[in-house]
């Protein structure tokens, strides 16, 4: 395969042989300990003294799956509004105080939890943590700021309506989940639900959900267990109240048969392609083989889907697959952006890769690439205090055992080719796949119809 003409441009050198790895040095995920305050708030502390930095995350059971029907977006609005002022500081003063310390204090909500995060230099931890505790427990939710946040969310939704990726993701969620499932609607709420949210809704949501019994405080970085506990006790020890009970999220599918969805984006040169269906919950016992299977299918750069669509056919800048891990079943999706004229061909390749991983055994080199990558990259994922705190937050959100991180690499290495094929056959469902394309309807309609992939539905962007 060498090219003699080009090779002559520089005299070829003898290459030293490809090196073998040295013996690995041991790595352990940082030790952490648990404590519980008298008010029921749980504490997870991982002392890591590499740099003078401390990261803190409060994980509160106040995620988007707590949103009442018709009030989608409430959890995210409440989380964002936490930093808009407290009983002692208005929003501007609060931002100034935090930033004068060089700290960052952010609040947001994903599907399964609200996360309030602080990162600060160690020398400012007392003062920064006091502000953090104030935001978590004593927000005032000024009417004017709530209305501004709502207006900004509406602006974001209007922008997303012109953005092909956002448009495709939002329409895909609606194609996959039953209309009354929370998962069918955007995490941050839609143009129908957001305008209806009120300051009273936000205050009531905070009062019902932001409670010590529903909160785990994660601290990672340059601090001791005792110092972290003393800090939590001093600033959050008086916080009281039980969180209101709530039902589990509804993850029912919209359809049990194949359908094709075409979202019109006139004149788009490129189509956003999504293929998938409802996946499995994070706590599923097949989690490890599924992670390995997905790496081979579409998780890695050298995955089947990316090599096929990008390197073999040049259809795309990139293609990947993934399970969106949530407490209840999040979606499984293969996603890519492809030229209009190649869209149907690319979809056909994706469908054939899904069939292939279910039916053909994976080659030993493919399996070992996935497992050695996931095993080896593990320490690299946890280089920063914020990443360690994030990992411990996930432990809490998904109820994983305390030895999860210590066992992780062994469990990845234990996955076999037979496991991969079994979980692909069990958890990928070609007969239920939803094929969604956001792009130019003129160019796409006929080739998509020619695929004969279930009924073709024209999907409008969500109205509101």
């Amino acid at each position, binding site marked *: 395969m060498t090219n003699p003409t080009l090779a002559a441009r520089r005299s070829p050198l003898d290459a030293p042989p490809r090196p073998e790895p040295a013996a690995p*040095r041991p790595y352990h995920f940082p030790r952490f300990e648990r404590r519980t305050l008298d008010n029921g708030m749980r504490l997870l502390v991982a002392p890591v003294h590499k740099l003078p930095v401390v990261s803190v995350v409060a994980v509160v059971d106040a995620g988007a799956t707590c949103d009442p029907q018709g009030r989608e977006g409430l959890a995210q609005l409440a989380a964002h509004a936490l930093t808009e002022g407290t009983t002692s500081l208005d929003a501007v003063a609060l931002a100034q105080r935090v930033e004068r310390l060089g700290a960052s204090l952010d609040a947001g909500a994903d599907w399964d939890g609200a996360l309030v995060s602080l990162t600060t*230099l160690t020398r400012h931890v007392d003062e920064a943590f006091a502000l953090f505790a104030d935001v978590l427990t004593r927000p005032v939710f000024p009417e004017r700021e709530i209305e501004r946040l709502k207006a900004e969310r509406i602006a974001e939704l209007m922008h997303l309506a012109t953005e092909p990726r956002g448009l495709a993701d939002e329409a895909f969620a609606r194609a996959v989940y039953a209309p009354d499932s929370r998962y069918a609607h955007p995490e941050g709420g839609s143009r129908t639900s957001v305008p209806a949210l009120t300051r009273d809704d936000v205050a009531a949501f905070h009062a019902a959900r932001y409670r010590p019994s529903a909160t785990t405080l994660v601290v990672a970085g340059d601090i001791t267990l005792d110092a972290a506990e003393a800090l939590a006790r001093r600033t959050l020890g008086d916080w009281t109240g039980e969180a209101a009970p709530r039902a589990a999220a509804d993850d029912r599918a919209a359809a049990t048969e194949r359908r094709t969805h075409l979202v019109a984006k006139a004149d788009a040169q490129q189509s956003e392609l999504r293929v998938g269906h409802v996946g499995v919950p994070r706590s599923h016992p097949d989690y490890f083989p599924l992670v390995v299977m997905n790496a081979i299918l579409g998780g890695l750069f050298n995955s089947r889907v990316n090599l096929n669509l990008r390197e073999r056919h040049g259809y795309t*800048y990139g293609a990947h697959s993934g399970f969106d891990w949530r407490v209840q079943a999040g979606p499984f999706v293969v996603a890519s952006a492809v030229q209009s004229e190649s869209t149907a061909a690319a979809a056909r390749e994706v469908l054939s890769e899904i069939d292939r991983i279910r039916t053909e055994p994976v080659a030993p080199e493919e399996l070992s690439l996935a497992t050695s990558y996931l095993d080896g990259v593990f320490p690299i994922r946890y280089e920063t205090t914020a990443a360690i705190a994030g990992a411990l937050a996930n432990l809490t959100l998904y109820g994983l055992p305390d030895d999860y991180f210590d066992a992780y690499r062994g469990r990845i290495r234990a996955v076999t080719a037979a496991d991969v094929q079994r979980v692909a056959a069990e958890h990928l469902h070609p007969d239920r796949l939803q094929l969604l394309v956001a792009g130019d309807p003129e160019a796409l309609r006929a080739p998509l119809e020619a695929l004969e992939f279930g009924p073709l539905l024209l999907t409008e962007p969500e109205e509101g």
Partner: protein
Amino acid sequence: MRIPIETYTLANGLRVVLSEDRTAPIVAVNLWYHVGSANERAGRTGFAHLFEHMLFQGSANVGANEHFELVQRAGGTLNGSTWLDRTNYYETVPSNQLAIALWLEADRMARLLPAMTQQKLDTQRDVVKNERRWSVDNQPYGTWWEKLPALCFPPEHPFHHSLIGSFEDLDAASLEDVAGFFATYYVPDNAVLTVAGDFEPAEAKRLIDELFAPIPRGGPRPPLPPMTLPPTFGGERREIVPDDVVLSRIFLAFRIPPFGTDGHYAASVAAAILGLRQGSRLYRALVRERQVASEVSAFTYDLAKGSDLLVLDAVARPETELAALEAALVAEVDRLVADGPTADEMARAMALVESGFVLGLQSAGDRADQLSRFTTYFGAPELVNVQVERYRAVTAEAVHAFARERMGEDNRAFLIYVPKEGSDERRAASVESAVANVGAEG
């Protein structure tokens, strides 16, 4: 915090930087080539970036896509990126895998061309065209990446033209271009190799010597055209772009001193005062108080030659008239020009800059990238250790002087996106319903 640094140069001109940190069994390998889109010749825009893709297509002893495979198989992460004035490649691997990361970088620096084929070039050309569609053409505001430099640098200037290139120029790229670009720029004396993290220095040096020392030095490289420009634009510039967007957006750029100079540090502090985080002036005034913008930010391109740009970016709220957004934005700039920053603002900016710098050095890969950056641009990796002091030395007077000199009416370039005709009706309808909906429950 001081990062340990050892640096030396091989006989072939390759500059090597080593920085040990044994806290975790992780090591980063980082290679900067001092070439970017500025070095492209006429009719070949986008070539430096297309070439970055070709560097992952294999070399004499590495198959196509095998570079990715070998690093990931080793448990590592990797990528590369191209900028106006440099291209970088990087891997972070478990420390026992240092040798394979260095071997891969050496094989492509020494022996790329024997593996090049027309088919690989054609495929990567398609991939890059799709990257262009994805990141530029099919994105609302996506063209700002090429329109803003084109507005701010004169046509003959190396920073004027598109980094990702045009379809026409990408089509024109040949295998001969690949060979010529490689022989000219991908040579040891135009590169910096940094190793940061958990490694044994003697072993790292032995490997680097074995793998990189035999690679011959390059020939003369064509000089870049003169890059020095007058300190200001000499008047206001303005380009209005009708686009498939519903929210208007303003990019306001100022010509500023290049990265690494005292003037650039003052500019960075001015940017933090104006647009970094919620305590900044623009956030307070435009987002919170006047509510004319939904997002604001400020950034610099960090170009180390000739001159750099400081850019303010503001996205309008749906109901906001463009003129009101522009007036509010300009008012804040004018106020900084007239009065300079307050002591409080200086303290806030310094604290954020300092902690941001410390936090940005937590990972081995980020440390390696910074060391390569300062070595490539200034031949001095130890500049990493004086960054915080350089920022601390910036006074309120220096920021005020910078604002007076560089943020006046003679140095403003406005790139403005507005909803294009035909989307007006849709926009008007959605604005009306959005505003009515928000107001209804308020």
